């Protein structure tokens, strides 16, 4: 048993190193389109895992992901932009004091982005103590929209609806996937701990959970804060990937995109989330090329704007009607299942050999 455990651990380490080496290789040798795709995949993985923690494992449905991502993205964007760039890009009003002078390196900005988003997540999670179900999702939706509208209306802090431009592009594949792996591991550890059991208990039945001594407010808030921290980091990565942020990026559509991925993968499965995020990223980029107008063999192809959103809306409806379990349901990837599969494969091969 102990041997198995060590083997599993070793395999995990090898897999992580493998992924990281792949990202370094991909950055150098793949074309821009593929690199962008793998970037978005990683960022979606962080967003989906954190959504699964709140909805899949704790049972609190939140529509605040778009607003929280915006907080992370804007914080990191404002911290990494140079003061000169800010003076140029703030057209409506000059930047206010602390923002006009700061410039931080990437890593501390990312951390602060995460922490600040966690604080906002605390504020957004607090209503979960009072309201449930429909009311909670509307409350979180309201918070998310308030954040977006504030970004549009405070020109001195975030340049209003024009957004920020010229953000240094610090994000690379290694950062994105490193942080995605950390998110998955941290979430998995949390879910498997005694805290995680308490969270599942809350999901199944709040009254029963309280009766057996689970501290409802502590655990709910913890889930929100924990997940918001990673959402903020994903936002920061996004800002430093795109080089621009604008309030229109953080419309409720973003929250629904995350929900689509989570439902597709299975809301209680982190593995499913990773797979679904990949499918979503690929489909999304492919549909984007179909959407955009261009010339094919001299014929003007006008493009089909809205096709992407329409496809995903239909997909979400079909999923929720016929495939609510998602790809993975509540099962996770584990080395043990790989072992048994490999054993079965070899066993079969052996027996096949005997027959021949």
């Amino acid at each position: 048993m102990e041997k198995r455990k060590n083997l599993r651990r070793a395999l995990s380490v090898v897999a992580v190193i493998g992924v990281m080496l792949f990202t370094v290789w991909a950055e150098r040798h793949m074309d821009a389109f593929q690199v962008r795709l793998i970037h978005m995949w990683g960022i979606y993985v962080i967003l989906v895992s954190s959504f699964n923690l709140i909805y899949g494992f704790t049972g609190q449905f939140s529509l605040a992901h778009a607003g929280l991502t915006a907080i992370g993205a804007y914080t990191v964007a404002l911290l990494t932009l140079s003061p000169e760039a800010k003076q140029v890009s703030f057209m409506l009003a000059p930047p206010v004091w602390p923002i006009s002078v700061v410039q931080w390196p990437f890593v501390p900005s990312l951390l602060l982005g995460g922490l600040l988003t966690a604080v906002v997540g605390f504020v957004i999670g607090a209503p979960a103590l009072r309201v449930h179900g429909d009311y909670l999702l509307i409350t979180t939706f309201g918070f998310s929209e308030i954040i977006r509208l504030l970004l549009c209306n405070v020109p001195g802090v975030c340049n209003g609806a024009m957004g920020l431009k010229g953000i240094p592009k610090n994000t690379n594949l290694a950062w994105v996937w490193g942080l995605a792996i950390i998110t998955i591991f941290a979430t998995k550890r949390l879910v498997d701990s005694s805290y995680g059991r308490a969270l599942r208990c809350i999901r199944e039945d709040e009254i029963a959970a309280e009766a057996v001594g689970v501290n409802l407010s502590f655990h709910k808030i913890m889930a929100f804060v924990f997940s918001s921290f990673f959402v903020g980091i994903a936002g920061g990565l996004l800002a430093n990937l795109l080089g621009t942020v604008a309030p229109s990026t953080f419309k409720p559509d973003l929250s629904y995109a995350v929900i689509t991925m989570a439902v597709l993968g299975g809301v209680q499965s982190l593995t499913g989330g990773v797979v679904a995020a990949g499918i979503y990223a690929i489909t999304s980029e492919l549909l984007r090329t179909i959407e955009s107008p261009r010339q094919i063999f001299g014929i003007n192809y006008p493009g089909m704007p809205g096709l992407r959103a329409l496809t995903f809306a239909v997909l979400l409806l079909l999923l929720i009607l016929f495939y609510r379990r998602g790809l993975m349901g509540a099962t996770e990837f584990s080395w043990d299942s790989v072992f048994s599969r490999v054993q079965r494969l070899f066993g079969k091969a052996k027996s096949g050999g005997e027959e021949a």
Partner: protein
Amino acid sequence: MTFDFFVQYLANGIALGSMYALIAIGYTIIYGVVRLINMAHGDFFMVAAFLTMWGVLRLGLPWYVAFVLATVVTVCVGLLAERIAYRPLRKVKISSFIGATSVSFILQNFFVVFFTSRSKPFPHPEFLDRVLKFGTVSIPVVTLFIMAVSAILFLLLSYIVTRTKMGRAMRAVSKDLEAAMMMGVDPDRVIAFSFILSTTFASAGAFLWCSRFPFVSPFTGVVPGLKAFIGAVMGGIGSIPGALVGGFLLGLAEIMLVAFLPSLTGFRDIFAYLLLILFLLFRPGGIFNVKVREEKV
């Protein structure tokens, strides 16, 4: 601020409020009967506006014929959505919300794909463009038209809900679904009827709204839909008088905010959302303190 300005703002506020109230009624009827936040309501509104525009511009129909046809088609769209997306999910809470949201996105983006997202002028009847002068106060005819039509529709609704058999069945289902079923009420019929009512009101609201703000795009329904929803929550979602009062108050409050504190105009949506959150947190029953039917597990 002079008195005539105040009267004008008041008239605008009442007009906006009555449109919010009309749309809010659509939300509240559905919530009262099915316990579903129909996120696609604003998009039924948009569909009605689009079809009316089409009827007038493409088919050359007079506006009232176009409006009636558009309403009929919108009702069919609503019933179709109910049959396909809402009915199978009625028992699963969060899923039904996601289903409704998907319907909303499908409608919006269907129109974006096939009719582009540009906004087009809405062909409203010309007599609405005139302005009436009462001494120093000038009020556009469209404002008065909105108030009159809303008043008639409210009376009609209260007649349907309180005096007809179907209305009684609706109230029964909203109070206690199982008891109503035991009394021989067919919930599917009642729910279908409430969707007919709700989409009809959305269609009327769309016509009035687009006469006042004469542009149509696939996203026309989003803002009025959300505002009306906030109005419905303020009044107490599930209650028809609540939707009326909530919608009116929100419309008036918005116009008065713009009138008295013009510097905060950009913040008016933020205030609306704040009101929504505060009501949900501290008075989920709304102004009328509506008691929500407990779902039996």
